[in-house]
């Protein structure tokens, strides 16, 4: 926010009594200021309205189930047996897989673009990453469904064969020794959905990180070089510490988007309503795809239940995004860009 000292006149340096500072704003400035303020207020109001709307619509369902809404792993709203234990777990797992894959990818790409790639290549790379972000999610979904899924089965199988002893990589019904084993236990899984979502959120994470990395002060970079650092040394000593906020912020931003990703997940997963911690195994669920799936055929009460699930997702993403922005604001790069 434009604070008092920003546009003030010359402060009397040698006065003992600090002069009262005021800002003389022109009409144009004032109008601009009001515009910005009202835009900000409207955004907040819309957010609040969305939350309120969800809360009101969800009220009926939430009153019917109470606390068990968070612990029930079923979805039969019409017989009043429903809860988000399973779908929320699925949502978080998909997002976790997505972030695990996308963060190294985005971090590496961002560093490459900001510090390694030759200058002419940078613009092309930036454009390509932005292009990736612009691809509609249904395209990612179809790509995942018709191309990725059949090609990822081998990896899933290998992981579960050799690392199945790690609980979350276990696959029920996998038959490692059986040549006729069905490949379908590895399809429509959290893992496949997670990979697709990872590719969708990576561009956003990459852009945020790249922005921050390129802002790393040139003086410090040069200083690091002057002290004999290699490029990697410079990156570790200057760019990464400086951009820590951006990395965390970008990650969280991606996480927020991963939690809400709908259509790509909807296309890939085979919805189940029990808590399914095995990420390689077929069957998972997510709040947003649940809503997409049942939005059309839900009864009034069912719609209320879907709204309640939506509310849970809304709150979750709100928390994630607020955490992200506060971390970014507190970091050096973030503080600078905010100030």
């Amino acid at each position, binding site marked *: 926010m434009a604070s008092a000292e920003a546009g003030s006149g010359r402060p009397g340096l040698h006065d003992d009594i600090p002069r009262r500072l005021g800002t003389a704003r022109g009409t144009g400035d004032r109008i601009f200021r009001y515009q910005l303020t009202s835009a900000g207020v409207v955004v907040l109001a819309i957010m609040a309205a969305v939350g309120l709307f969800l809360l009101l619509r969800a009220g009926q369902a939430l009153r019917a189930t109470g606390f068990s809404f968070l612990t029930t792993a*079923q979805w*039969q709203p*019409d*017989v009043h*047996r429903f809860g988000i234990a399973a779908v929320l777990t699925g949502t978080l797992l998909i997002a976790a897989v997505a972030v695990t894959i996308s963060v190294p990818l985005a971090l590496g790409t961002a560093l490459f673009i900001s510090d390694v790639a030759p200058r002419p290549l940078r613009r092309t790379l930036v454009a390509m990453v932005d292009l990736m972000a612009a691809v509609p999610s249904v395209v990612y979904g179809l790509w995942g*469904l018709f191309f990725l*899924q*059949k090609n990822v*089965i081998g990896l899933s199988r290998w992981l579960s*064969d*050799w690392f199945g002893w790690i609980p979350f990589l276990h696959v*029920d*019904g996998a*038959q*490692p*020794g*059986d*040549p*006729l*084993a*069905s*490949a*379908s*236990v*590895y*399809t*429509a899984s959290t893992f496949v959905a997670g990979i697709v979502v990872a590719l969708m959120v990576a561009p956003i994470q990459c852009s945020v990180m790249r922005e921050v990395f390129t802002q790393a002060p040139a003086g410090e970079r040069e200083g690091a070089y002057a002290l004999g650092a290699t490029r990697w040394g410079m990156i570790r000593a200057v760019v990464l510490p400086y951009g820590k906020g951006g990395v965390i912020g970008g990650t969280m931003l991606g996480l927020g988007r991963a939690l809400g990703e709908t259509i790509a997940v*909807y296309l890939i997963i*085979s*919805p*189940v*309503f*029990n808590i399914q911690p095995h990420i390689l195994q*077929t*069957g998972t669920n997510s709040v947003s795809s649940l809503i997409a*799936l*049942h939005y*059309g*055929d*839900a*009864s*009034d*009460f*069912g719609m209320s239940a879907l709204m309640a699930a939506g509310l849970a997702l809304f709150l979750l993403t709100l928390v994630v995004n607020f955490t992200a922005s506060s971390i970014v604001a507190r970091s050096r790069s973030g503080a600078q860009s905010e100030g």
Partner: protein
Amino acid sequence: MRTYPMGRRFTAVPLLAALLAVVASVLLGPGAGIAAATSYTPIAGAGSTWAENAVDQWRRDVNQYGMRISYSGTGSSDGRRQFLSGTVDYAVSDIPFQTHPTDGSAAENPAAGSYAYMPIVAGGTVFMYHLTIGGKKVTNLRLSGDVVTKIFTRAITYWDDKAIKADNPGLALPHRTIVPVVRSDGSGSTAQFTLWMANQHTSLWNAYCAKVGRSGACGQTSNYPTTSGMIAQSGDLGVAGYVAQGYGEGSIGYVNYSYALNAHFPVAKVLNHAGYYTEPTPQNVAVSLLKAKINTNKNSADYLTQNLNGVYTDSDKRNYPLSSYSYMILPLKVEGTFTKAKGNTLGAFSYYFMCQGQQQAPSLGYSPLPINLVKAGFDQIKRIPGVSAQSIDIKKCNNPTFSADGTNKLAQTAPYPKACDKKGAAPCTTGSGGATTSSSSTGGSSGGTTSGGGTGSTGTTTGGTGTTGAAGTTTGGASVDPDTGQTLSPAGSSGGTTSAGATTAGGTVALAQPVTVAGQSGWSSAQTLMLLAAIALFALILLPSVVSRVLHSRKDSAS
């Protein structure tokens, strides 16, 4: 010098004019079409994916008359719900409004007199499967009703189960997991299938419902209760798509017949009460639905809806138990977004598909409506507000079911199943008339449409169709010779993994006897070596830097 370019310019003028004329005609051409079409207001509908292939065909057909009909196959439940909330002008649903649902879902309460049902097409719900033996696609699988129910309730989980073998004597089924693929969205296909299971295999179905936590009996339900090991996909297309994928091997899903034809995939022949395994060819469906009890009480809210109990238990040899009609839900009141102008379009569209459109049903994998339902449908169309009633000479519709004497010609001429389709009979073998059946039927062949031939007509048809169950998969030879896909059992299917594939070429059957190779599981020396190699690789990468760092730090501390 100057005149020359001038001359050119002059010649250019007519050229330009001609060009303009062309452009104008191009621009105006469709414009004129639109002008003619303005009498038709675009309408939108949603619902069944089961009937979607037929509706889509009709929509494309009437485009030429300037009717802009949109339809989104989002599932019958969604269609009905959207119709109730007034977001669509018409809905297509395989089942009527669920005013008294048996599965505990909320009742749908349409306002009395605001809607009417009209049957639009008949067809069969089929079990499309993906199974190979010795690298060859099985195309002649046969299943009895309780086996189907057990498969979809996970009571049978392997393809080499005794019950499946009993249905398919001679077929060397592999010890492969069965993956049932069901609908994830609210679906009329699911409703028809579960109604059949609840009606015919009550105890199995109820036991399953109780097991998966649906309170007590779920009876007919639009939302399939899933359990682990099942795949749920949205839309008939989603189910068919999953089964058809490479990783869908071992899967079986329920879809409308047309989807199996489009995917070039085989469908399981289902055992009927006469003891024959049949598939839902247009003829068989026509025969089966002679036993459907249609509500003929015009004052009933459920006028024209079907009661399929007679179809399930029909003792006609040609019966396919899972045959049913799909319905369009017509609006009878001008309310919401529905106007009389839209009623006019809907009426004209309905007249088209109830009359001419029915001709195409068999080629799409559906079965045309019989004359009594077409007549009743015409009466229903008259009730749409804003419709311009037509008096159609029903004989000119060229509906394959119509005959001069009013009987159902399609059903009357439907061929009887071959002897080898009889329960317990040896599987149809090469050369016998029936042989064609087995492979052809399944063949969901592209030309598919005809697959009708499968059941009925003899070899010729099948061959023609490319029957081929083998169709997509196998050799050209196969498509010529209808007998492909016939798999014969080799000696031992023991050990679970062994299986035999039969490849036919020119009528000879070559049997392949795959050998079971002990699969590797657990830790062995190979894995130890792999691990060592990985460690060595990492050491190679990391050790130099680690060592140098250690040395440096020592030097630092020393100095």
